[in-house]
């Protein structure tokens, strides 16, 4: 070893005290460009957890994870996107697809952490310095990965529709249905919101695939009234459809109808596998409306012998006698009911419980009973003169029209009420050639009728008079006319909260003479057929049952559902009640089959 080699470490050490030639941070920090695709920002309050970001991510860098504070919000899955920055390539497809437009990117691009798992984070939930950054990539206004506007439905014009009872909605063509189905992001938020939890994304996919038989099978898993619901469902699914946040919601109801319309009823048995293995148990169903027939169908599929008792001459309940044919034609309703009958459900029409058949006999004869008798008794206004012969019930007018009878309404009609029965009574009256005033106590915005019913009734030139309180019915001396006295209302805030209440202004009264007045202020139940001894054992509040788990009443073999047992009083809820009760009855009668659960 030379002397130089021996001394060289000492020469190196002398440089240890010199100013370094290198920098601790080799480059100056530069901000990202204003639209840089940096770290993700999620406005977690606006996000509804639809999972579109997760579905579109090509690198599987996004998981949807539950976040407690968002759990249980209506129309919200309670999930939020969690990013894995070991996988993300910052392509921004997640931002482009975001239905709620809650996902953006900051222009921040440096993040140092020692633990690799730190690079997994739930944007908008875990605090990050860039969450409030206004810069970074945002989806351009008006830019959508899917068309935001729904495919228009071909409908009769208002002038055409009042000329007849023909169905107003014509339905989608296959080309239109496929285009509309293409807009669905398959998030499934609708499934959670639908009372029957129909598998909407999958049956919409069946349209894209052109596989309508699979679509029909999927629908019948939870709803044996798809032709009906494809027309008159209250479609709460569409209210929460995330595509509707920045555009128009998917026309889920019309797509359901499209599938049913593509399949001939003659093929139903083959497609829906009608094989039934009898189990020896007998169940009675009271009421052949959507709730009763839904229970009957699912019970029959489980092998029960099912007898449905119906007071009317045909099935459907309010769907038949309360929903006019321009919204739900008989052949569509019959398509649903005929298939239910075809699987072996026995319906005994024109049979009144408590008169033709006694309730206590049913209790003895059957292993279980499902009650779904609906709300069939029209409420009375209880004002002076209401018993005038020219005051008709809205339910009776609709039932007469459904049976092809002339309800004899005349040419000038006042309809009292703001629910769907009132709207339908008014629209039916227009079709029968009458001029119609609808008198409603509150404001139009507070009407309980479906918004589209209100809109269409106005388009059909029903004159909607809001804040009008009827106070008296007066005889005109003519058998063909009647006079109503009504007063204007002022809406006053209830000191205890809740919706404002109408208060009659006695100095602003009006009188008007009509050919008839149609009262449609609501309807209640008739449970007189249940013997008093049984009634006393059932929990009934304000004319409605209050069912427990699986729609079971306080009496173990009696199950209840439909309008007489729920608050929503719509067809889809009744259908789900029936399905749910069928599962409950099955658990009750075959406890061994569920022992492991």
């Amino acid at each position, binding site marked *: 070893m030379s002397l130089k080699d021996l001394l060289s470490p000492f020469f190196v050490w002398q440089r240890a005290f010199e100013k370094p030639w290198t920098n601790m941070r080799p480059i100056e920090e530069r901000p990202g460009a204003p639209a840089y695709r940096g770290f993700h920002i999620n406005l977690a309050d606006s996000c509804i957890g639809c999972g579109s970001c997760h579905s579109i991510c090509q690198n599987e860098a996004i998981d949807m994870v539950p976040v407690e504070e968002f759990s249980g919000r209506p129309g919200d899955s309670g999930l939020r996107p969690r990013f894995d920055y070991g996988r993300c390539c910052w392509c921004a497809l997640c931002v482009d697809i975001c239905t709620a437009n809650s996902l953006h990117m900051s222009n921040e691009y440096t993040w140092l952490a020692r633990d690799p798992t730190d690079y997994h984070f739930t944007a908008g939930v875990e605090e990050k310095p860039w969450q409030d950054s206004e810069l970074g990539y945002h989806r351009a206004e008006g830019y959508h990965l899917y068309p935001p506007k729904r495919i228009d439905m071909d409908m009769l014009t208002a002038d055409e529709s009042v000329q007849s009872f023909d169905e107003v909605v014509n339905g989608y063509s296959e080309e239109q249905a496929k285009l509309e189905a293409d807009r669905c992001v398959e998030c499934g938020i609708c499934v959670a919101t639908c009372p029957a939890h129909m598998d909407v994304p999958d049956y919409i996919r069946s349209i894209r695939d052109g596989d309508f038989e699979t679509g029909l099978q999927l629908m019948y898993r939870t709803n044996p009234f798809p032709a009906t619901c494809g027309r008159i469902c209250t479609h709460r699914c569409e209210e929460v459809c995330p595509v509707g946040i920045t555009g128009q919601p998917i026309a889920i109801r019309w797509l359901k109808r499209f599938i049913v319309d593509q399949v001939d009823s003659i093929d139903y048995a083959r497609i829906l596998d009608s094989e039934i293995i009898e189990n020896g148990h007998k169940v009675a169903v009271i009421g052949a409306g959507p709730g009763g027939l839904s229970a009957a169908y699912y019970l029959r599929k489980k092998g029960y012998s099912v007898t449905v008792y119906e007071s009317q001459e045909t099935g459907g309940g309010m769907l038949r006698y309360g929903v006019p044919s321009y919204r739900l034609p008989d052949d569509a309703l019959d398509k649903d009911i005929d298939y239910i009958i075809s699987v072996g459900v026995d319906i005994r029409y024109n049979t009144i419980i408590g008169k033709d058949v006694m309730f206590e006999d049913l209790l003895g004869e059957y292993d279980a009973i499902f009650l779904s008798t609906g709300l069939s008794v029209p*409420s*009375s*206004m*209880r*004002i*002076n003169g*209401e018993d005038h012969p020219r005051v008709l019930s809205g339910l009776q007018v609709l039932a007469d029209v459904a049976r092809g009878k002339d309800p004899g309404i005349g040419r000038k009609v006042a309809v*009292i*009420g*703001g*629910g769907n*029965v*009132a709207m339908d009574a008014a629209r039916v009256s227009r079709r029968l050639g009458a001029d119609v005033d609808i008198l*409603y*106590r509150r404001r139009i915005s507070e009407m*309980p009728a479906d918004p589209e019913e209100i809109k269409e009734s106005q388009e059909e030139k029903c004159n909607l008079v809001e804040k009008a309180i009827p*106070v*008296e019915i007066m005889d005109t001396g003519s058998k063909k006319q009647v006079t109503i006295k009504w007063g204007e209302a002022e809406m*006053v805030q*209830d*000191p*205890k909260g809740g919706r404002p*209440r*109408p*208060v*009659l202004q*006695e100095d602003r009264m009006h009188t008007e003479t009509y050919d008839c007045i149609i009262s*449609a*202020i*609501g309807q*209640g139940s008739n*449970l*007189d057929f*249940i013997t*008093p001894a049984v*009634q*006393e054992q*059932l929990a*009934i*509040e*304000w*004319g409605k049952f209050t069912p427990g788990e699986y729609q079971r009443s306080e009496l173990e073999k009696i199950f209840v559902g439909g309008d007489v047992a729920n608050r929503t009083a719509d067809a889809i809820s009744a259908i789900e009640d029936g399905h749910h009760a069928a599962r409950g009855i099955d658990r009750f009668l075959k406890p061994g089959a569920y022992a492991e659960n």
Partner: protein
Amino acid sequence: MNTVDEILDYAIEQEQQAADFYAELALRAEKAGMKQVLLDFADEEMSHKKRLLAVKNGKHELTPEEEVLDLKISDYLVEVDATDDISYQDALIIAMKRERAAYELYTDMAANIPDSHLKEVITGLAKEEAKHKLFFESEYDDRVLMDN
């Protein structure tokens, strides 16, 4: 009735009679669920009675100056009978009309009494009855006039 105590005793007795009326009707009621509704009405009247007892004992004050919302629903409804097969709607009409009658009685009494202290007490009772009327009218508005 010349003293505050006499007037309050009368009002308390009226509330007791109302409670007894609903309890007796509940015994006769035939329709499903009506017994419980009428017993709830009886409980409501007993709560009114308790409130007036508290006034008499000095634990609670009437508020004659308080404005009470008048929905005027019962004013234009027909009289109905308390039959065995009474319905929800009719039970509420009876309740509303009873409270309205009591309100009008106290209002008339207050108008004809010269003693200012007594007048204030009776006006306070009228306001109590107006509140009870509002309670039943709100129930009617929510439960019977749902579609109207």
